[in-house]
């Protein structure tokens, strides 16, 4: 018979406001086997944990039930506390009376009654709990970083710095990501390339870092410490190890009319290309959608001019399988498509651009060599209107409900730089709110207004109408309470940002969770911000939520430190809640083996001593506890009930069912 202690948490008023915690503790004290029952404001606090420890010693408890928040929150806390007090951590059960009771019910009588039932179910389960000991599994000491933007680069450098191997998988031909397209960074206005490209070179030169560029993750198997990842290396039709990056092919290629994605289609590149001068790896790539040779078999100019003999038109996609102990997601963001916002005439006029396009226009390596010129006629614009929140904070269904966070600052940067370089240009910024929390951010924005004379107008643009070579901007000025009509030369739209489209299929492969906007969710929004709830999967950069560069870099380093903390371990403690076969009852029928996703079940010939002293050799199932992940598929496939799951046994679950239904 267990001696059970029950501890009911108030969680301040989170639970106590809707659940009569005293009543719950009192009611549960009458349950069979309960020798101690109490309530306390914060069971998870040190004082609360000490109460549990003291009670274990005072009352000789063998089992503990904590009625508190979700076990996903504090199960481990309470298990550790019990372990310190000398009872097996798996003798603890949590009744979730916060997320699944006090927070969703309003009526105190109902909520209290439900809390008591949930407590009873936990008590019924604890009666059948058995001490469990965790096994261990080895850790593969290599990390995978998915995405080679600034987030992925920083994470990879930090992990490699600690002495571990890192692979970066980048779907584009070069690493660098969005930051490589940016001209200057706020609020310091240092040149993005000047701080990014040295890091890219560091990555290329680091012996522990291996870049799979122009590659994608195709499949993920395994679990924390032991992931097996299939990487699809797309055919670039250029031998990566042979190409010297001289660039002759990219000058000679006769196919000149390929929209250059690096400049967002504002100029053209060739069918064989190197995205930009500082690309890493600096290797040419053939675009199969445009290459005449690949499409018709006639051309071959690049092959002829290549002195290194690097061109290979027969190259095929390649699948590479690699093992990793940890995976970091750094898939980044993209501006949204503006097709649903044509009141701003984005599709009607080339002089209506997105902020990222504006960034390329002002970049020395961009389509206008850094001169501020209108895409339509190459003339210098004298009036520029910036529109904030295009698609952000939009609940109408066209855009994104969240704040994209970076737009206020980069718009201030664009406005300021425009006024600095071209004082003859009038700059208007239409804003809903200017959001500048961050070190030196508000000062930066105020400088744009006070020193550079940018016109910040509280209001929104309602219509942009191209007329001749002007863009007629109709907008509201809410503070003046008037409607403005500005004849502008250029309009810059601060398009909302969204997670990269590759993120959702990747999340499925990783079994990592995502929110409704396709941002990866954290294991805990405050306390575990760089970990995914799926063990061994970490988050870096804008894949988790909109972020600027400094924030991205800090998160990237944080993710790296979490990965290092994992990889320094030789072994990981396994989940002890694994399947176990009762050999006496096992028929050896192989049903369980067929449904096991991990191949954890094998069969052995076991010798049984019979009552009449003879022996019988029978085939029975045997579970490898280091491989078993504890899903329980085998337990239901087993017709004899020989296979059971520790921690979630048939009897335990049925005891819970009974307690709930009684």
């Amino acid at each position: 018979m267990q001696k059970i202690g029950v501890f009911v948490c108030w969680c301040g008023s989170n639970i106590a406001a809707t659940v009569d915690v005293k009543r719950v503790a009192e009611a549960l004290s009458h349950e069979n086997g309960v020798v101690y029952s109490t309530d306390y404001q914060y069971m998870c606090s040190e004082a609360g944990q000490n109460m549990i420890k003291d009670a274990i010693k005072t009352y000789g408890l063998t089992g503990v039930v904590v009625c508190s928040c979700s076990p996903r929150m504090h199960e481990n806390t309470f298990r550790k506390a019990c372990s310190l007090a000398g009872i097996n951590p798996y003798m603890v059960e949590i009744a979730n009376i916060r997320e699944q009771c006090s927070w969703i019910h309003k009526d105190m009588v109902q909520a209290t009654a439900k809390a008591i039932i949930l407590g009873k179910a936990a008590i019924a389960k604890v009666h059948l709990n058995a001490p469990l000991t965790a096994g261990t599994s080895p850790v593969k000491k290599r990390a995978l970083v998915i995405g080679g933007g600034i987030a992925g680069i920083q994470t990879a450098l930090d992990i490699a710095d600690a002495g571990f191997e890192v692979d970066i998988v980048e779907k584009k031909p070069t690493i660098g990501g969005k930051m490589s397209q940016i001209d200057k960074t706020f609020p310091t206005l240092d040149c993005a390339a000047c701080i990014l490209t040295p890091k890219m070179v560091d990555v290329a030169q680091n012996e522990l870092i291996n870049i799979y560029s122009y590659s994608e993750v195709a499949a993920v198997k395994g679990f924390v410490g032991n992931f097996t990842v299939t990487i699809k290396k797309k055919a670039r039709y250029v031998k990566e190890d042979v190409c010297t990056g001289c660039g002759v092919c990219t000058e000679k290629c006769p196919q000149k009319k390929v929209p250059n994605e690096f400049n967002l289609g504002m100029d053209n590149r060739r069918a064989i290309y190197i995205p930009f001068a500082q690309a890493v790896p600096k290797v040419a790539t053939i675009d199969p959608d445009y290459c005449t040779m690949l499409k018709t078999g006639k051309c071959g100019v690049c092959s002829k001019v290549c002195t290194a003999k690097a061109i290979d038109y027969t190259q095929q996609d390649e699948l590479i399988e690699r093992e990793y102990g940890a995976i970091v997601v750094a898939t980044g963001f993209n501006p949204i498509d503006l097709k649903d916002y044509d009141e701003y005439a984005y599709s009607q006029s080339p002089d209506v651009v997105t902020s990222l396009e504006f960034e390329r226009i002002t970049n020395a390596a961009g389509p206008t060599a850094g001169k501020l010129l209108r895409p339509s006629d190459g003339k210098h614009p004298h009036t520029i209107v910036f529109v904030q929140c295009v698609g952000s904070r939009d609940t109408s269904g066209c855009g994104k409900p969240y704040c994209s966070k970076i737009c206020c600052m980069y718009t201030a940067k664009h406005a300021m730089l425009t006024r600095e370089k071209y004082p003859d240009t009038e700059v208007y910024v239409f804003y809903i709110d200017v959001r500048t929390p961050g070190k030196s951010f508000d000062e930066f924005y105020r400088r744009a207004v006070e020193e550079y004379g940018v016109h910040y107008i509280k209001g929104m643009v309602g219509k942009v109408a191209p007329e001749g070579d002007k863009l007629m901007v109709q907008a509201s000025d809410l503070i003046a309470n008037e409607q403005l009509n500005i004849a502008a030369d250029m309009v810059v739209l601060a398009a909302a940002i969204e997670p990269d489209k590759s993120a959702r299929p990747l999340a499925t492969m990783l079994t990592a969770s995502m929110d409704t906007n396709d941002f990866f969710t954290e294991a805990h929004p405050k306390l575990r911000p760089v970990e995914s709830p799926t063990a061994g999967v970490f988050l870096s950069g804008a894949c988790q939520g909109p972020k600027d560069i400094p924030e991205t870099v800090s998160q990237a380093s944080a993710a790296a430190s979490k990965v290092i903390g994992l990889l320094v371990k030789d072994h990981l403690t396994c989940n002890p809640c694994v399947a176990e076969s009762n050999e006496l009852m096992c028929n050896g029928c192989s049903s369980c083996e067929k449904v096991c996703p991990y191949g954890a079940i094998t069969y052995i010939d076991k010798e049984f001593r019979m009552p009449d002293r003879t022996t019988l050799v029978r085939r029975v199932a045997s579970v490898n506890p280091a491989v078993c992940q504890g899903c329980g598929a085998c337990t239901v496939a087993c017709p004899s009930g020989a296979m059971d799951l520790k921690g979630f046994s048939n009897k335990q679950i049925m005891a819970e069912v009974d307690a709930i239904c009684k």
Partner: protein
Amino acid sequence: MQELMKNRAIELLSAGEVDRVVGWKKGEFAYDCTPAIFTDANDLRDNFVYDDFTAPNLSKYLVAECKKGGKMAVFLKPCDTYSFNQLQKEHRIKRELIHVIGIECNGKADVDKIKARGVDGITGITSEGANFVVETIYGNETMPKYEVMAERCLTCKSKKHMVYDELIGETGDVNPDCGRFDMVAKLEAMTPDERFAFWRGELSRCIRCNACRNVCPACTCEQCVFDNPNSGIQQKVAVTSFEENMFHIIRAYHVAGRCTDCGECSRVCPQSIPLHLLNRKFIKDMNELYGEYQAGEDTTSRAPLTNYNMDDCEPSIVHERGGKA
């Protein structure tokens, strides 16, 4: 037929090729023959029987016999060979110890149907073309086979042996149009209330004698969950009325994908509950939802419940498809 089988059994035993033969012998009445293990030629000569009443499926008895070691011969009708394969697939029998003698079967008589015609004092049975000739102490009675044949034989799915080492008589063909799911379809077409009334009428007669479980070739567990105090659903004796429903549902579920539809459960039920209609429902569902599958057809394929397709139907199909609301 009986003599051919008997002689072959004696021959195998005498030659030492096997040390026992699994067959049938007469019970108290002519029509209730029982499975028997023969180790002696004289015993065989005196007691071995095979006629139109020898219905029991002998496959299951091989599970216990295999544990004893030694070679054995067994007589298997076509439907019994499915059970044999299924047991082999589940590693319950040792193929190398067993000499399978496939025997021809043209359907067995259902003694209840014969008795229902007022025939009594039965002493034997023979076949004459399309008729059975039932011998009684009052003389012979001739009756058409289709009127008194067991239901499972009238809807026989296959006269083909799935496995044998030697054959006595002929092996036949699989019959895909046997109509064995007709009754299930009829039930499915009823309203839930009608189905409920039907099953209530049937299942309420159950006396939990366990005959169905004991005879079932798929029920060969070392220990049945209903006998296991750790399974959480142990119920040696049904305490509440609910438990018997649960027993039949769980039993049908446990043999789903493994049941070969041999029909032994319904044959032995003393209360004449059509238990095979539960098993056939699962078989029909699995065929329709996951593709045709016949348990015992081979010894390697994956059963529907230990397999899946990514685009399987959702459980809500039960709500969506046929059957009246």
